[in-house]
């Protein structure tokens, strides 16, 4: 390592262990990685335990549980779209198409394979090794099908820029919708159920497995983005020409981001099918894509926490305002317009929350009121430099 002779106290001394280790960069003490993961794992476990006990104890009603599951589903939808919008910097307008493909695929997989796992409609809901296996395989199948669609769509779409990409993805999603509507007449047998949709889907989705999946999805997206692959993707967003000139295979990474986005959307769709029990093409049109996009933009593109918060809020809001259901869409649209005018970067901008970082700040006495304006790091995905 190059020695620097200057004797300024700000010079960093870097102590590195293999893998984890307390690092000091720029005179700043940081938490070791195992500690960070442990903290996050504990938070998740806490949330799950509290939730399950509230449901089991009857504090939370059946209806409210369904809403909670939908919150989880839309969190997955929002963070998956965020990969292609916030991190890659594109504007796909067909996300609902992937959700639809994933939902149909997972539901059909589960329904056609239930007997092989010795399960029936009734006992799908009770947790057993068989039901968990079928659930996991179904979701993966849904995700993979959606990912394949993402690949097919991505190859032509990603050659285009900006608004053209938006339109072509919109077009593909509409085609998916029409196909789901009409494929049965082409195939000659009942697959998707046409306009009335796929009905009688067993409710394999519950609070616990939804949020376990949410935690896993967020973890995977996080680890992908905080690695050289994520850096490549963000570099493409920030300056595609410079990224190419720095040796980043832009075609590969754009496709990767797009396919990953589709994959996780498919998983969300799979959960949706098990939650609602019905998959109908009309539900997955442009409107749905827009709803998810609004969640991402409102929460702040490039901010996972933002997506989580706005997905939660925007799922609860229509339910809470059911009483005013005639006015709620009008109010919703006005709010949307106002937020865009007065805070175009969304509620949280590209800020990403990390409890570990909060603890680090406390360790280093780095409080917000002490920071000089120039020092402020716009967090986003980049603030945590993992060692």
């Amino acid at each position, binding site marked *: 390592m190059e020695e620097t002779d200057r004797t300024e106290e700000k010079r960093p001394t870097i102590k590195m262990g293999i893998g984890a280790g307390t690092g000091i960069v720029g005179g700043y003490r940081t938490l070791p990685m195992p500690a960070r993961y442990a903290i996050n794992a504990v938070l998740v476990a806490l949330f799950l335990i509290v939730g399950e006990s509230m449901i089991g104890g009857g504090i939370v009603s059946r209806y409210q549980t369904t809403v909670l599951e939908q919150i989880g589903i839309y969190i997955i939808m929002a963070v998956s779209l965020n990969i292609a919008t916030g991190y890659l910097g594109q504007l796909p307008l067909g996300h609902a198409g992937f959700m639809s493909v994933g939902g149909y695929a997972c539901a059909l997989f589960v329904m056609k394979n239930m007997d092989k796992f010795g399960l029936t409609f009734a006992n799908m809901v009770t947790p057993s090794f068989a039901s968990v296996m079928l659930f996991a395989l179904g979701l993966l199948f849904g995700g993979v099908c959606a990912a394949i669609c993402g690949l097919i769509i991505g190859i032509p779409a990603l050659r285009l820029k900006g608004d053209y990409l938006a339109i072509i993805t919109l077009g593909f999603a509409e085609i998916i919708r*029409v196909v789901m509507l009409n494929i049965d007449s082409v195939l000659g047998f009942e697959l998707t159920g046409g306009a009335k949709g796929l009905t009688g889907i067993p409710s394999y989705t519950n609070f616990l497995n939804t949020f376990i999946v949410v935690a896993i999805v967020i973890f995977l997206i996080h680890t992908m983005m905080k690695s050289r692959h994520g850096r490549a993707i963000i570099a493409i967003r920030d300056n595609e020409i410079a990224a190419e000139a720095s040796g980043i295979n832009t075609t590969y990474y754009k496709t990767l981001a797009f396919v990953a986005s589709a994959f996780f959307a498919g998983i969300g769709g799979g959960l949706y099918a098990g939650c609602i029990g019905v998959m109908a093409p009309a539900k997955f049109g442009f409107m749905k894509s827009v709803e998810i*996009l609004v969640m991402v933009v409102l929460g702040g593109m490039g901010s996972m926490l933002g997506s989580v918060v706005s997905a939660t809020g925007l799922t609860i809001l229509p339910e809470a305002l059911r009483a005013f259901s005639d006015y709620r869409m009008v109010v919703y*649209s006005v709010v949307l317009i106002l937020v865009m005018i007065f805070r175009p970067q969304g509620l949280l901008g590209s800020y990403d929350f990390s409890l570990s970082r909060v603890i680090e700040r406390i360790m280093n006495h780095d409080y917000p009121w002490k920071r000089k304006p120039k020092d402020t790091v716009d967090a986003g995905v980049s603030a945590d430099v993992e060692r």
Partner: protein
Amino acid sequence: MFAVTFLTQVLNGLQLGSIYALVALGYTMVYGIILLLNFAHGDIIMVGAYISWIVMSKLGLSPVLAVILSVLGCTALGVLIDKVAYAPLREAPRLSILITAIGVSYFLENGSQLVFGADAKVVPNFTDLTTFQVGGMSFSFTAVLTIAVTVVSTIILSLLVQKTKLGKAMRAVSEDMGAARLMGINVNTTISFTFAVGSALAGIGAVLYSMAYHQATPTMGIMLGTKAFVAAVLGGIGSIPGAVIGGLVVGFAEVAVSAIGLSVWQDAVVFLLLIVVLIVKPTGILGHPMTEKV
């Protein structure tokens, strides 16, 4: 017999294509000048249709007044939307203004539903002429009128853009807003004017649509707007002749698919067409590529 059916279908294609062309022109003009996909454009047409319904059905006034008020109403609405929702976001990231456009679209749709209800309102006939005879064959008056109006509108629009000072300002602003401003062009006025013209065309489209389909529903603008938008992109967004060509292509495609009995696949075919064009020629049929300085 076949010739007559074929001719009828051609006329249908031209009629539908003309309506798409008129709406596409509005899209393309707004996109050309502020690079915005105005999702609310289709809904402006919806409002125009409702205005016609109100004037003729509710107020019982003359169809001529309905036409005038519809076009004026749409024009005013378009300018108002720009002033209220888009103008504050001139400097904001493109995505924000796109979302705002979506918000405006939602607002118009749900607002109409609130005010008028979700059921379809019947727009009465504007005129008693339904067909006229040429050489032993009867043609729909509406169809011919639609085509004629579209042709005339396109010509007037082209003249406006090419020959007038305002048109020159529009072209300047769409090339380089900053430079246009420095040259003393009032950018905001020019943009408002562009919205006005685009919305006026939408208003005319609304009238022609109402003549053909006699219906006003809160969600009629969505598919119409989307397909007209596809037409604009197909023809090359930012290009006036492109919008017309795109509109006709989409119109004919729809009619052709319907004619062979596959009307459920109509929408899919239109979008497939779009995808093929975008793959083969990404900037559309008449579009010009934009290169980035390295």
